[in-house]
């Protein structure tokens, strides 16, 4: 009897449990699908064999294995041990290939957390790269319809490398620039937007394979034979080797340091052959190199060259040595994917629009890359070519907001025009400044007009910075930018002249040098009273010397500044007009010679004695009204 009772009770419990399990199975399956936890074996494209094997072999234990790996990774990271971090990240993502957040987390963890744990720049860069590679070569290819992964990758470029929060950000920028310059060279420097895009289009239009190359351009065979004859293959190492040679031979710092040897690993035989056979060399550069560049971009960096051209057509002459260019590219890819999603309300499109505008602003502020590979010196300078692009982008954003489709803002509903006013105001401020400082007065006036209209719309048109003249605006903004006391005219002028020297002479850019000198001269001439609205000038004639002496004094101060590297000062000396050098040489010769010797430089090469100018009475090269030359040979 009791056995029967036990059997009955057990049977009822069994039935209840089975029914309960059946009831929740559907809900659990749906949750697993929604979260992307399931790796279906049937009909799935693109899963690498090792992922499929491991997933099938572990079966239900896959979740347990993942938990163990996560726990181990967390524990080791807490202990400050990172020797398994990369491998565990790979294993975790292998076991959960469709779980997007895992990819994003692991990449972020390597690029931010683990990188921050080491003080060695090369090691930090290694971790940042691992984060990028995890997304670029594995996460995104396995999850091509996951927009967040594209945005995560864009964020690494934009924030980790592109911004200044990380103490090693210059190192990252230099490594990225060096890597890309080896492959692409400098495609945008000194070119107009159209020229830069056309230059890149040649890469996008290159054949996809060697067979296609030889078929479409039979004349390239000469170049391929030349490579083969000198033990080089048409592959990435050859491309990078040639890129390094080009970088070494065009390096200004190498000339200043007296370095004239080729980089290690150079195929000297190939170079000599190229010099001897100009036709083959031309075919190599025109046919084979673009093909190699395309292959490296698509195979190593997983970037679609046709898409890169489209992005450049939309955003301007993107310099692929610049981190923001990569950020824009990956962000655009993510936007394209997200537009295909059924549920737009899951995506904060306003954030995407703002992010895009922010990246363009960064390019406007710093889109011009100055990089010297011999010393890994990198500087990011303003690039006014992006002003027009930004203006177009924000106008498009306004149109989109006003359209029927609108722009979603996640839980906040739809975006409004006012959501972008802050960004627009910042842009107009910078566009006005840069246009004025870099010589386009008409554009500066136009932007200033728009800015005043916007200020009126926002009710701040009475602020002194907006209510006075354009020149007053420039002076106030410049003073704010360089952090000087606007009431101290001498300080403002000194800051402008220093800018002319450090952005102009130090980069061999006489055009920029002259522009800043022009602005300083205008300010000096006009005698602005920037701290007291209503007064025209406060200049005390007894306190300021004449303008050329002002320039010479500032020049001398810069050359004495021991916080500036000697090499940088040497470049400034090399490009400075002879009269400027002559004005300061006597007082600085000893100091400069000592500095050069301390830095291991030949003083005669680093700071040669100036040639005597024909007319010593005025610094003829300081031409407030004229435009200087483009870069030419140093003075």
């Amino acid at each position, binding site marked *: 009897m009791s056995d029967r009772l036990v059997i009955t009770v057990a049977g009822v419990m069994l039935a209840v449990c089975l029914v309960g399990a059946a009831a929740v199975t559907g809900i659990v399956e749906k949750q697993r699908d929604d979260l992307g936890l399931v790796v279906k074996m049937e009909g799935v494209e693109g899963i690498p064999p090792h992922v499929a094997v491991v997933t099938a072999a572990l079966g239900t234990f896959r979740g347990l294995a993942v938990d163990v790996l996560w726990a181990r990774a967390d524990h080791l990271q807490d202990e400050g041990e990172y020797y398994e971090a*990369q*491998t565990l990240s790979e294993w975790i993502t292998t076991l959960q290939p469709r779980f997007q957040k895992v990819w994003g987390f692991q990449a972020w963890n390597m690029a931010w957390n683990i990188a*921050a744990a080491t*003080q060695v720049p090369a*090691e930090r860069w*290694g971790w940042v790269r691992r984060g990028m590679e995890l997304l670029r070569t594995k996460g995104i290819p396995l999850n091509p319809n996951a927009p967040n992964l594209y945005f995560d990758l864009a964020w690494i470029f934009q924030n980790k490398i592109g911004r200044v929060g990380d103490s090693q950000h210059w190192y990252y920028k230099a490594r990225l620039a060096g890597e890309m310059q080896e492959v692409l060279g400098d495609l945008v420097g000194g070119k107009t937007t159209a020229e830069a895009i056309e230059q890149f289009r040649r890469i996008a239009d290159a054949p996809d394979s060697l067979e296609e190359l030889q078929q479409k351009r039979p004349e390239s065979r000469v170049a391929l034979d030349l490579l083969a004859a000198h033990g080089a293959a048409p592959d990435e190492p050859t491309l990078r080797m040639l890129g390094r040679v080009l970088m070494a031979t065009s390096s200004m710092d190498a000339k200043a340091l007296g370095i004239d040897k080729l980089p290690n690993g150079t195929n000297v035989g190939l170079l000599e052959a190229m010099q001897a056979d100009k036709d083959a060399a031309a075919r190599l550069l025109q046919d084979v190199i673009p093909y190699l560049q395309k292959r490296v971009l698509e195979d190593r960096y997983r970037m679609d060259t046709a898409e890169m051209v489209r992005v450049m057509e939309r955003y301007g002459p993107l310099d692929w040595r610049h981190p923001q260019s990569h950020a824009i590219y990956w962000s655009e890819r993510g936007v394209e994917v997200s537009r295909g999603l059924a549920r737009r309300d899951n995506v904060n499109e306003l954030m995407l629009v703002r992010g895009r505008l922010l990246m363009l602003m960064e390019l406007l502020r710093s889109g011009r890359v100055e990089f010297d590979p011999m010393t890994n010196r990198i500087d990011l300078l303003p690039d006014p070519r992006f002003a027009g692009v930004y203006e177009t982008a924000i106008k498009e954003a306004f149109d989109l907001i006003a359209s029927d489709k609108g722009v979603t803002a996640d839980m906040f509903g739809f975006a409004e025009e006012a959501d972008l006013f802050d960004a627009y105001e910042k842009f107009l401020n910078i566009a006005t400044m840069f246009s004025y400082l870099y010589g386009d007065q008409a554009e500066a006036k136009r932007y200033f007009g728009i800015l005043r209209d916007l200020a009126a719309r926002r009710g701040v048109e009475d602020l002194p910075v907006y209510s006075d003249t354009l020149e007053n605006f420039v002076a106030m903004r410049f003073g704010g930018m360089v952090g000087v006391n606007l009431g101290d005219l001498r300080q403002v002028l000194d800051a402008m002249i220093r800018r002319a020297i450090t952005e102009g002479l130090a980069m061999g850019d006489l055009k920029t040098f002259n522009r800043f000198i022009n602005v300083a001269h205008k300010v000096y001439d006009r005698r602005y009273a920037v701290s007291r609205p209503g007064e025209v000038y406060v200049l005390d004639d007894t306190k300021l010397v004449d303008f050329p002496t002002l320039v010479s004094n500032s020049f001398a101060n810069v050359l004495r500044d021991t916080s500036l590297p000697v090499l940088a000062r040497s470049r400034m000396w090399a490009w400075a007009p002879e009269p400027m050098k002559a004005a300061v040489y006597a007082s600085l010769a000893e100091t400069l010679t000592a500095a050069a010797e301390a830095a291991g430089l030949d003083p005669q090469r680093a700071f040669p004695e100036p040639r005597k100018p024909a007319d010593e009475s005025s610094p003829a090269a300081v031409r407030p009204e004229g435009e200087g030359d483009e870069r030419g040979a140093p003075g």
Partner: protein
Amino acid sequence: MPRWRDRETPARRLIARLAWPALTAVAFALAGLLWRAGLQPQAISLLGMIGLTIGLFGGIALLRALFSGSHPVIAVARTIIEEAIGTRLTILLAVIVIISLPTLPLLLDPSERLAYRIQFFLAWSLSGATVLLAILSIALCCSSVCGDIDSKRIHMALAKPLQRWEYVLGKWLGVVALQAVLVALVGIGVYGFTAALARLPASDNLDRLAVEEQVLTARAALRPSHPSGEEFEKSVAATIEQIRKDDPSTFDKDPAGARQRIRSHKVHEWHTVTADAVSTYVFTGLEPKRINARLLQLRLKPFTLNSSISDAQVKFALWLNDRAYPFRDGRHEEYTLATDMIHTIDVPTSVIAADGTLRVTIENRNLVMPGEDVPTSISFIPGKGLELLYRVGGFEGNFLRGLTVMWAKLAMLAAAAVAAATWLGFPTALLASLMIYISAAAQAFFADAIDIYTGVDDAKSTLTSMLRLRIGMLAETLLGFQWWEAFKTVGSFVADGFLCLIPSFGAYDSVTQLATGRVVPGGEVWMALLILACAYPLLLLAAGWALLERRDLVGSLS
């Protein structure tokens, strides 16, 4: 089957004799071919497999020689060794070790830093081998003892002049001896491949230095000495007095607890560098000549105080024995570190003073964070938050110590398996032994998990306070008819009780110590031998013997 297949013909004997040498020769030839084809890593791996196989056979021969005596315990040990050699499971696990150990280096990413590759190899090869040998030991002990009982062989064994305790001891001793041979084999293999890996090119000079001075070495951790014990005690006493005056009721409620809290607070205060302040931490007992390394590692885990910003960084300047560090290009550079992470700063050994002290002075250079109105203080967690790692020995001796600890853990598991098999059936004995192994290996994790699950997680709790808390919780849940919560509480009692009986292998984590270049102290080795290899086996084998004595072996078969 044709009869000729059963016959032991001279030809068959010759083939059997020549089979292994022939196979070995073929393997050597293949390794040579791989080497000439430019596949050196693969050739080295194959040679490693050959070496391990030869070593295995050699080890077996050694065991047979060692256990050739006639003492009953030795005889029982010999039988289990012969069983081990004959069973498929042992062969299978041995083959897995022989194949996977040399193959693991081939799977490492060559673009990874060499130091990381070596560390990864050490950690996973030794851990993997430990797991495989643990499974082997457990399976062997359970199958041997349970097999003897189930197949009635034990009657024949006990019919001889063999006491039951000798039987139990002999089984254990045989497995322990086999474990010693296998651990030695694994050790030789891992050491050999580690040495081969260390010869590979490093990513850069720093990577090479890390391999030599942070991985293939034995480093001890040193914590700073408190500046003056007497002064500290006076300060604590003064604070206690002040609190007693200001808030006597709170103090009197729990005086011991209050004193402890004040003391902890004072220690924490000492580990804090307030804004614009300078603190000096003195490390003593360093002997530069004995250290014999170029660098020491200063490990810091800083926190910011007075800041609500979760990712605030800390900025400070460092002096070592009053010398600014680092000093580059005429400037004393500052450090800017992320909080709540361990950072390692390499410090040259040459800065240690002649008297063996290193004064580490830290000046807080934090600015006021955006959104705050006071600069942040920098705090280090007492203990692991501020320590110095310095070399105390070489890798080889450390490696041997690590293997010894590994073997001690296996000895304990063997004793547990033998004891379980004396009174349980094979499947149950196997599961029970595996449960003991997993509990020992993950004891800290399980203890934490139980606390979190029952909602009584408290890092500062003691056994008494936890008991008091749990009993209180149980009473509350029963009175409130919260049956599920009561069930959880009872379950946590049982689980905690079980975990208390099991030693924690985490306290003897020699594999991680080896992989991270930390010393396996002699004291730890002796404790492992005493507790894991002697005390626990003694208790477990005594329990197993007692159970076997009381067990009706005839009745258990019916």
